[in-house]
């Protein structure tokens, strides 16, 4: 047997894992390297029986199919399925799962739970996969990454055969072992196929080798081979009997030739590579005819995924529509959203003859599954088409609620203006109808839109409308959502206690009604909101609670984890923060979680003087730009300003800080205004600053270094506290700052302090005047700057260039100036400014 060469070590490791028990072993290797042969041999050596399941090479596999194969009751969510699996493993403590790189999402979710809880059992689960097919964001890679830290989970890799092994196989047949090794690179399946053909020339590819081997069969034996080849994975004998009829008599010959093998009442190719090779050689018309015959034969089986596959291959649109939509619904219920989305997409490809009402139902369902699986552009397209259809149908409720649903994919895709428009339009449409849950939910979506833009007062107003409407209808989900939006908006406006009260009410309501997603969201907003307000100790507590909750409920932990990374960095636990951030970045997390993680990583690198700070912060900026929200852009630019300052580039620090300073002022964000003002002040480029900025920054900018340091310590930020002390006059405070920076490993800040302890302040204005007292129009510093240039006759574009702002931002400032001065034109503004004495140099 070819496959058993050079596998003794691997077999021994599997056996050791079995004896130890409570282990999940992933066996990786390229296609054809001999993974199946290895696990079969392992199973053959055991005394008792094993559970087996395998994943099929289908674009839309049957949800939980492999576990069904293994005889596990697959009802409910991954936790329940895992429980059922653990029950089955009590009597048969070994499970072999093959080809999990093809596994559906629900199976992978189950595997994730198994990996985390297997130590409580005495069982061994072995899962094989093609390690060269899980590049990039392959879902299996995510699972492997998440389980990498568990001591109960390990990976084995099946290597290719050595030259010696190939020679040992080839030479008894008089074949040239070296040439075969050279060609096959030791791929066990390829070697076997070549040795089975005994041809004069070596086949150039695996496909050629397989077809050369198949060519040695009689013509009617090949006909049976074709039938088996168009059935993915395994063909049942009854199915072959129904489709191949007479030709089934050739089964023994095909098995004897080594092309097929029988396993109980199913027949399969010895390898998926062989099936694909033979399938590719079946003529198109014959393939179609075979799929049609298989479809008819399978009709009574009720396996919707298989039926949908064969219906599409047979080109039978009526059948595709019937089965794909059903398969999609079934997949969504099992939590296999990727498969559900693929099945809906398949149905839509065949939906040309549907009525508008039938089509819109498919589109709505597809839009939902595409959103859940992160395919935002597809989700948007589906919903836009659905809205058009609802309009032709005169279904205003469908139209309005679908518009509201467009908001989330628009925002995730970075199309904020469209999101805003859709969300407004939804309210307009729905307010014209009798009140219902759709309207309450559309109000909550409006609140969400305002909250993420940090228009906190509007966030509260819409949130209150949502709660009132939802309470009248008894819509508990929207009540919890609305309370969350109100609370988050209050927190972001600086009314922290009030905000936390609302968020805790949302949490309580969600818990009472078992609304898992809302529980997770309340905890996540408590954690990230308090984090953004530098209430770090509380933030960390809620973030940890959130992560524990979402992981126990199989929801995504990335946003909470990325905020935990930031909180750890601000609490000066740099190793923990960096490793938390890297953990998120190693997964295909959403862009928003990536941004926060990259900021955490960039800050740590900048503060330690490690390389790669700008790599991380450049990527963060690219990701933050499309959304354009203060919470990301302000955060990224603040981190970039800090990094520039730490490498001694004050000019760039000022530029970075200025970029989002106007936006931060407009939203009245205590902390972003504070930090962005701080870097401008450090660079000697800030005229004044509002009084309401976050206390530690206010004290720093007022020249009260010691008090600022104490305030930072109260927020739990040792690095920021030490940084504040570097601005003190007192020698002993400076020495304390230095000792603290050295202790933290903050090399760049320490270096700056050592290099120029006496030159501090040369470029640093201290005791900055706080407030806009002498400013009748209550213009901000930036608005005054713009106004002076406008009054000097500059065009907006010139102002933009001069102040390093975007033209759009300048437009915005100019409108604010006109509004505040209560004038209509730029000329009137110049006159008003002169009258108010705003143009004098100060």
């Amino acid at each position: 047997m070819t496959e058993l060469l050079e596998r003794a070590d691997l077999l021994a490791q599997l056996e050791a894992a079995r004896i130890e028990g409570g282990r999940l072993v992933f066996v990786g290797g390229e296609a054809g390297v001999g993974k199946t042969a290895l696990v079969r041999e392992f199973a053959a050596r055991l005394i008792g029986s094993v559970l087996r399941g395998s994943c099929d090479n289908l674009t839309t596999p049957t949800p939980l199919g492999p576990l069904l194969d293994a005889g596990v009751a697959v009802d409910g969510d991954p936790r329940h399925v895992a429980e059922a699996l653990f029950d089955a493993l009590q009597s048969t403590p070994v499970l072999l799962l093959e080809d999990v790189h093809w596994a559906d999402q629900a199976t992978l979710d189950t595997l994730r739970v198994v990996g985390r809880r297997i130590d409580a059992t005495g069982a061994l689960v072995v899962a094989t996969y093609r390690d060269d097919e899980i590049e990039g964001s392959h879902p299996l890679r995510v699972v492997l990454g998440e389980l990498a830290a568990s001591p109960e989970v390990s990976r084995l890799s099946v290597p290719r055969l050595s030259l010696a092994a190939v020679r040992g196989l080839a030479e008894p047949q008089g074949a040239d072992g070296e040439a075969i090794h050279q060609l096959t690179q030791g791929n066990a399946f390829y070697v076997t196929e070549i040795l089975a053909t005994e041809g004069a020339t070596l086949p150039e590819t695996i496909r050629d080798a397989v077809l050369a081997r198949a060519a040695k069969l009689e013509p009617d034996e090949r006909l049976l081979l074709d039938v088996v080849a168009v059935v993915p994975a395994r063909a049942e004998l009854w199915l072959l009997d129904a489709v191949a009829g007479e030709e089934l008599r050739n089964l023994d010959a095909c098995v004897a030739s080594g092309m097929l093998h029988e396993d109980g009442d199913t027949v399969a190719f010895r390898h998926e590579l062989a099936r694909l090779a033979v399938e590719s050689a079946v003529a198109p018309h014959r393939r179609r005819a075979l799929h049609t015959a298989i479809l008819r034969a399978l009709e009574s089986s009720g396996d919707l995924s298989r039926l949908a596959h064969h219906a599409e291959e047979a080109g039978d649109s009526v059948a595709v529509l019937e089965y794909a939509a059903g398969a999609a619904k079934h997949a969504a219920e099992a939590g296999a959203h990727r498969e559900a989305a693929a099945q809906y997409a398949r149905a839509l490809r065949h939906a040309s003859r549907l009525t508008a009402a039938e089509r819109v139902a498919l589109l709505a369902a597809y839009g939902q599954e595409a959103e859940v699986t992160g395919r935002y552009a597809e989700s948007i397209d589906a919903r836009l088409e659905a809205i058009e259809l609802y309009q032709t149908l005169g279904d205003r409720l469908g139209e309005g609620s679908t518009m509201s649903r467009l908001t989330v994919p628009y925002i995730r895709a970075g199309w904020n203006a469209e999101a805003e428009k859709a969300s407004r339009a939804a309210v307009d449409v729905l307010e014209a109808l009798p009140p219902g849950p759709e309207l309450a939910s559309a109000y909550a979506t409006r609140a969400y839109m305002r909250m993420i833009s940090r228009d906190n007062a509007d966030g509260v107003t819409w949130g209150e409308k949502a709660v009132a409407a939802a309470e009248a209808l008894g819509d508990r989900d929207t009540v919890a959502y609305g309370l969350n939006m109100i609370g988050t908006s209050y927190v972001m406006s600086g009314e922290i206690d009030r905000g936390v009260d609302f968020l805790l009410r949302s949490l309580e309501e969600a818990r009472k009604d078992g609304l898992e997603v809302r529980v997770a969201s309340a905890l996540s907003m408590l954690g990230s909101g308090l984090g953004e307000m530098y209430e770090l100790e509380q933030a960390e507590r809620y973030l940890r609670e959130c992560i524990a909750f979402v992981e126990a409920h199989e929801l995504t932990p990335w946003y909470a984890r990325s905020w935990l990374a930031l909180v750890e960095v601000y609490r000066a636990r740099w190793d923990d923060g960096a490793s938390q951030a890297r953990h998120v970045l190693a997964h295909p997390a959403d862009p928003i979680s990536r941004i926060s993680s990259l900021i955490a990583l960039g800050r740590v690198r900048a503060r330690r003087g490690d390389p790669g700070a700008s790599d991380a912060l450049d990527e963060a900026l690219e990701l933050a730009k499309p959304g354009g929200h203060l919470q990301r852009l302000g955060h990224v630019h603040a981190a970039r300003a800090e990094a520039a300052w730490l490498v001694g580039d004050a000019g760039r620090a000022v530029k970075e800080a200025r970029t989002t300073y106007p936006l931060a002022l407009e939203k009245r964000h205590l902390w972003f205004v504070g930090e962005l003002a701080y870097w401008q002040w450090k660079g000697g480029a800030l005229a004044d600053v509002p009084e309401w900025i976050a206390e530690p920054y206010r004290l720093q900018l007022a020249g009260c270094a010691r008090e600022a340091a104490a305030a930072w310590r109260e927020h739990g930020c040792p690095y920021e506290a030490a940084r504040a002390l570097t601005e003190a006059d007192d020698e002993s405070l400076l020495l304390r700052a230095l000792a603290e920076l050295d202790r933290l490993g903050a090399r760049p800040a320490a270096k700056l302090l050592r290099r120029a302890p006496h030159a501090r302040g040369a470029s640093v204005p201290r005791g900055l005047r706080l407030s806009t007292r002498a400013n009748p129009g209550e213009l901000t510093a930036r608005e005054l700057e713009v106004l002076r240039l406008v009054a000097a006759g500059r065009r907006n574009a010139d102002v933009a260039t001069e102040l390093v702002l975007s033209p759009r931002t300048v437009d915005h400032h100019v409108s604010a100036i006109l509004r505040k001065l209560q004038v209509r034109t730029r000329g009137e503004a110049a006159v008003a400014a002169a009258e108010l004495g705003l143009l004098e140099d100060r």
Partner: protein
Amino acid sequence: MDTYVILRRSGWRSGEDLQEAAARSTAAGEQMSDDIRWIRSYVLEEPNGVGTVCIYQASSPEAIRAHAAAADLPVDEIVKVVDTVLVRPDPTPATIDN
């Protein structure tokens, strides 16, 4: 993997201390071989003992710090190498422990 230079100035009182550190470094490196590879080190004469300049390949600066923490090695500065100019081979090493 990128190449990095790691400065560990005045890290050890004696050559023996450094030998022990090298053994810890190798052991820790084997535990995280996907993320870090020790290429070579230059041992520096310092006022109160010895220090090193180490050349590593690593998946990130954080991997270098994690390795240093696991092996109890000091890190003064990590610098990324963007290019290598080889003029002559290194002088014959005095001791080869790895």
